């Protein structure tokens, strides 16, 4: 979501610049400093921005239900169709409530926390103090959204991320354990990572509070719409989950073809549409950067879908719908962190490259290593996310037509100097922190559940299908 960041050098400079007058200021001048405290007002809210962000919010919700649910549902066997739909739907419901309860506060405040760079406190738990008269910062000085709009927009991201995970161990997970996992994982993995990557005080506050930001934001990591927070985060959690839960009964011994690729096609297409809200909405304003993210989301995805079909045409002479749909999703994932930074030309290259790398992971690496990532959450979301996150450091370079980064420590934001190598290294650090953090949290949570409540249904229940054994109903009668 963040178009702009502050690199470490700028941070240090900012601190120094700020510290100098503070040290020199006589005590009597404290009162004189008071008028500098900035207060957003209703006049700083643009109705066009509000309208666009509320539409974007609805679009992103559509990505979870029904898009992701149908995309995943079509890929499982008929006997597990409802289990996947139910998992996605319930996770969306639970995640929305958790976001209201403590998620927003943990992700987007910095007060009341012992480690404000890692995670926020509970000052806004249950949306305490959030009302139509409070405002959230955008990326422009003096432009604000009603805070409730920002809460909702971010809520939809919190809803889709845990829902993405279920594809990795579809067809073999105990429903109640999954839901407990989701609540714990959001609290311990999603909210801290969202905070580290996305939280900052805002353009009008940063000059006077240059350390009020998440850890990775402070490092200068670029993640426009959630490559690390959403896709790498979910993809790694899925991989850990499928390794701990183990493969499906009969995996690699009996055919497990998708039961309805028509639904997968509908799901993938709705994901693409919804993703315009996800990426272009992450500009937080209805402006040219939203348009840039929009067109990049369009063309990178197109390139990725075409690339996957072309590889299949070359490797086995039959380009498949599932292949093209998988390419589309890989492209959407990969362009997410770069959406507001890349030129459409480099976005196309990024989409195509990510598609080819994901193809390799899904068809070759998975088979070689033998893990049963049922619906390729790792192969597409984590791998595509990592490719996109690292490549963001390249495509954001103004020398390649990218948008660079903006220094918000200045009272009026100005463009910073871009260092591609340094940026790529920063991006790698952000990926590393995300992978390590979510990997560790997911492993601990899955292992605890495995040895307490149990993570998978018994063999008979799994063989009969989760629709009947876990939910007592059938998709098709």
């Amino acid at each position, binding site marked *: 979501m963040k178009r702009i960041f502050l690199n470490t050098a700028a941070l240090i400079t900012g601190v120094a610049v700020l510290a100098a007058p503070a040290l020199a200021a006589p005590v009597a001048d404290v009162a004189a400093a008071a008028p500098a405290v900035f207060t957003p007002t209703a006049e700083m809210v643009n109705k066009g921005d509000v309208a666009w962000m509320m539409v974007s919010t609805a679009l992103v919700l559509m990505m979870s239900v029904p898009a992701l649910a149908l995309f995943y549902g079509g890929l499982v066997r008929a006997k597990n169709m409802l289990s996947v739909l139910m998992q996605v739907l319930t996770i969306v419901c639970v995640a929305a409530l958790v976001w209201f309860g403590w998620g927003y506060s943990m992700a987007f405040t910095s007060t009341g926390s012992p480690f404000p760079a890692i995670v926020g406190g509970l000052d806004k738990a249950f949306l305490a103090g959030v009302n139509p008269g409070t405002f959230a910062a955008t990326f422009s000085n003096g432009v604000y959204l009603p805070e409730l709009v920002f809460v909702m927009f971010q809520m939809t991201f919190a809803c889709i991320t845990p829902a993405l995970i279920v594809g990795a161990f579809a067809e073999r997970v105990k429903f109640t354990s999954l839901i407990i996992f989701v609540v714990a994982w959001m609290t311990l993995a999603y909210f801290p990572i969202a905070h580290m990557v996305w939280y900052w005080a805002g353009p009008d506050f940063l000059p006077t509070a240059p350390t009020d930001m998440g850890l990775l934001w402070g490092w200068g990591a670029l993640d426009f719409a959630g490559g690390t927070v959403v896709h790498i985060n979910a993809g790694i959690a899925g991989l850990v989950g499928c390794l701990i839960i183990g493969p499906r009964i009969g995996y690699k011994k009996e055919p497990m*073809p998708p039961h309805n690729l028509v639904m997968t096609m509908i799901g993938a297409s709705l994901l693409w549409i919804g993703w315009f809200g996800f990426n272009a909405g992450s500009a937080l304003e209805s402006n040219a950067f939203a348009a840039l993210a929009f067109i990049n989301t369009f063309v990178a995805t197109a390139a990725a879908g075409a690339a996957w079909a072309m590889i299949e045409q070359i490797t086995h002479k039959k380009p*498949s719908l599932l292949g093209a749909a998988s390419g589309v999703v890989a492209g959407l994932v990969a362009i997410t962190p770069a959406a507001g930074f890349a030129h459409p030309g480099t976005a196309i290259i990024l989409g195509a490259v990510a598609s080819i790398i994901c193809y390799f992971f*899904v*068809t070759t690496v998975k088979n070689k290593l033998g893990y049963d990532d049922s619906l390729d959450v790792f192969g597409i979301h984590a791998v595509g996310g990592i490719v996109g996150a690292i490549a963001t450091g390249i495509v954001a370079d103004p020398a390649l037509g990218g948008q660079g980064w903006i220094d918000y420590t200045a009272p009026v934001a100005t463009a910073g100097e871009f260092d591609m190598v340094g940026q790529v290294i920063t991006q790698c650090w952000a990926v590393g922190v995300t992978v390590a953090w979510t990997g560790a949290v997911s492993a601990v949570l899955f292992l605890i559940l495995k040895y307490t409540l149990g993570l998978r249904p018994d063999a008979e229940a799994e063989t009969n299908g989760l629709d009947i054994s876990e939910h007592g109903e059938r998709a098709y009668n």
Partner: protein
Amino acid sequence: MKFIIAIIKPFKLDTVRDALSGIGIAGMTVTEVKGFGRQKGQTEIYRGAEYTTNMLPKVKLEIAASDEIAAQVVETIQQTANTGAIGDGKIFVLDLASATRIRTGESGETAL
């Protein structure tokens, strides 16, 4: 009376049906079935996972015919369902002991 069972390629169903109507066959039962013979199966690939299906979809026709017309029915099916490739199917002929029309209770060839 004869009971004729024909296993044919699904796309030939309409042609066969039209030809049989042309020689006076007024009814048949059609079922979508799967099976295998000498024709090799199909390979399906889903994101690199290859499945070879050795059961292929076919259509099974069941026709009850009078003794006079039975040979002609077999010949018609053989000619119209033929593509010249393996997998065209088979025709089986059985003796039929009786036939009864449920609505009227008629039996024998008048029930056909």
